[in-house]
């Protein structure tokens, strides 16, 4: 098991955001975390990486309790990709080399440089290696960020909206590179996504979150219109198009469905 989180609780200023959440992840498995804005998806990822300290609960990665590890030790286990990303004033190579920070003692070794070169080639970024990150397109910059997380040589990847602000082509490219790297290297990955169709297409399991709790833990094949209604408060049907399951929201959305927390009984 790569990750095992048990009974996670977290709150901001007395308002509980995570309420006894459990989650586990296998090697080579990708899990999509879905839910409305404010459901606690980003908070969950930050608690899993101990960027935020859960008020209760245990997070184990590769059988190590994260509460007993320092920041650098955690960074050797987990690669975290934040939602809002800055364009650092560095070359692509230097930006990815940052991923080696948890492994570097004083200076980057030949091995560190080799790892970075390998990841850049693997991500198809080698031709951009000496360009400044600021000069890249949105899709290229997002690949650099994922490359940095892979250069950490982590056991687990946590990605917060890795495809937000990307066009359709770049969304597909980023997801394919990401899932490919995770499967090849036998990592675990938890990905927060707003796009349910991307999650259905690329990820192995889905965690549906409602108000800080796991509402359902399912495979993409098990997702139904009822799940969409319960999680998003939106009427939708699932259809199969050229071998891919897709969610099609209904044209008109009932206003009394706006609050997913209260819709379960009213809609069923």
């Amino acid at each position, binding site marked *: 098991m790569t990750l095992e989180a048990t009974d996670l609780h977290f709150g901001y200023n007395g308002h509980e955001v995570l309420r006894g959440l459990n989650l586990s992840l296998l090697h080579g498995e990708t899990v999509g975390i879905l839910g409305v804005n404010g459901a606690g998806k980003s908070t969950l990822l930050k608690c899993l990486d101990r960027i935020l300290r859960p008020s209760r609960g245990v997070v184990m990665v590769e059988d190590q309790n994260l509460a007993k590890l320092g920041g650098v030790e955690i960074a050797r286990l987990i690669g975290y990709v934040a939602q809002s990303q800055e364009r650092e004033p560095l070359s692509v190579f*230097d930006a990815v080399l940052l991923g080696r920070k948890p492994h570097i003692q004083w200076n980057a070794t030949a091995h560190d440089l080799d790892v970075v070169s390998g990841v850049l080639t693997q991500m198809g970024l080698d031709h951009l290696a000496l360009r400044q990150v600021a000069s890249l397109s949105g899709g290229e910059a997002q690949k650099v960020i994922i490359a940095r997380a892979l250069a950490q040589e982590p056991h687990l990847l946590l990605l917060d909206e890795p495809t937000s602000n990307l066009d359709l082509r770049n969304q597909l490219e980023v997801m394919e590179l990401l899932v490919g790297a995770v499967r090849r290297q036998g990592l675990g990955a938890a990905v927060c996504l707003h796009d349910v169709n991307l999650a259905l297409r690329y990820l192995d399991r889905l965690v549906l979150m409602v108000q800080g709790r796991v509402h359902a833990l399912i495979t993409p094949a098990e997702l139904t219109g009822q799940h969409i209604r319960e999680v998003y408060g939106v009427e939708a049907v699932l259809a199969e198009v050229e071998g891919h399951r897709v969610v099609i929201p209904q044209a008109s959305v009932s206003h009394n469905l706006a609050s997913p927390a209260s819709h379960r009984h009213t809609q069923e």
Partner: protein
Amino acid sequence: MKSHPASLPRPGAQGLTQRYGAGLKRRYLLLIALGVATILLGLQAVAVGSYDLSPYKVLLILLGRGEGASEVVVWSIRLPRITAALVTGWGLGLSGLLTQSLLRNPLASPFTLGMSHGAMFGAAFAIVFLGAGSVTTSGLYTSDSGIFMFSRLYAVTLMAFAGAMAATAVILLLARLRRMSAASVILAGVAMSSLFLSGTILVQYFATETEIATVVFWSFGDVARSTWREIGLLAVATLLVSGYFLRRRWDLNALLAGEETAQGLGVNVTTLRLVGMLLASLLVALATSFHGIIAFLGLLAPHISRRLVGGDHRLLVPCSGLVGSLLLLAADTMGRLLVGSGSLPVGVLTSFMGAPLFLYLLLKGNRS
């Protein structure tokens, strides 16, 4: 199970590493060239002035083969001043880089954040209320020649540090609590500067004429007034802080990618920021209490350095120090040459250089 990217086939990866290594080497060579240029300017600065000396004679004096007046000029007047300019320039350049990197704000510097004015207020308070300042007006050192001695040097330094820290604490608190924009943090710095300036004027209101003269002259910004002991203290502090941040250069680089990313890479951002700002305040306090306010140097040096070596703190930490040294030495030497006898306070010249850059950055920031 898990296999790492380094073990994957990667055609051309070796060539990529070599090309990257070559680029990095070029930037290190530039840094060395800058160091050599600073040393050469230092030697030239010893030679020029109202009492002209040839570089050869300077070299002889430095090797202990000098004699007479020229030896006194070099060892007692020019060398302390030049060393002070080099060390203070390095300290202010580095503290400017730290404020910009730690607050992630290109407009930040000890001067624009109000740290320098905080230090000035603290020092003025020590001079007037703690009796830390006195003016030596012997036959050799007149008040006109501008040589002032502080009877209780460390009271001035400690109070300057407290003043700089007060400004730093307010800025840190505002940046943390209100999630302020870069420009808003600078506006807060302007407010802090005004507050400390008013405080300094209030302190002067209660001061004697001698104390006012001490405070006013001290606030000019001049590297000619420090003793070897003060220069030594500043040099040790600057060396230690530089060493600390060379050690933390990867942490500073990680912060470039955002706070959460840095945390994800194992950086304790809160500790880094607190310790960093504390150490930057210490350098500013020492530099300001020994040499007065030297405006804008902390803003100029990191920006010029980024143009030269890029944003990587492995090079940026030493480069900001070196550029600070070079700029302050150049400004001080120019100040000596522009005025026949005596010199212009170096703070005036750095303001002339720094203010246009500050306006440019402000306009650039607004556009983006």
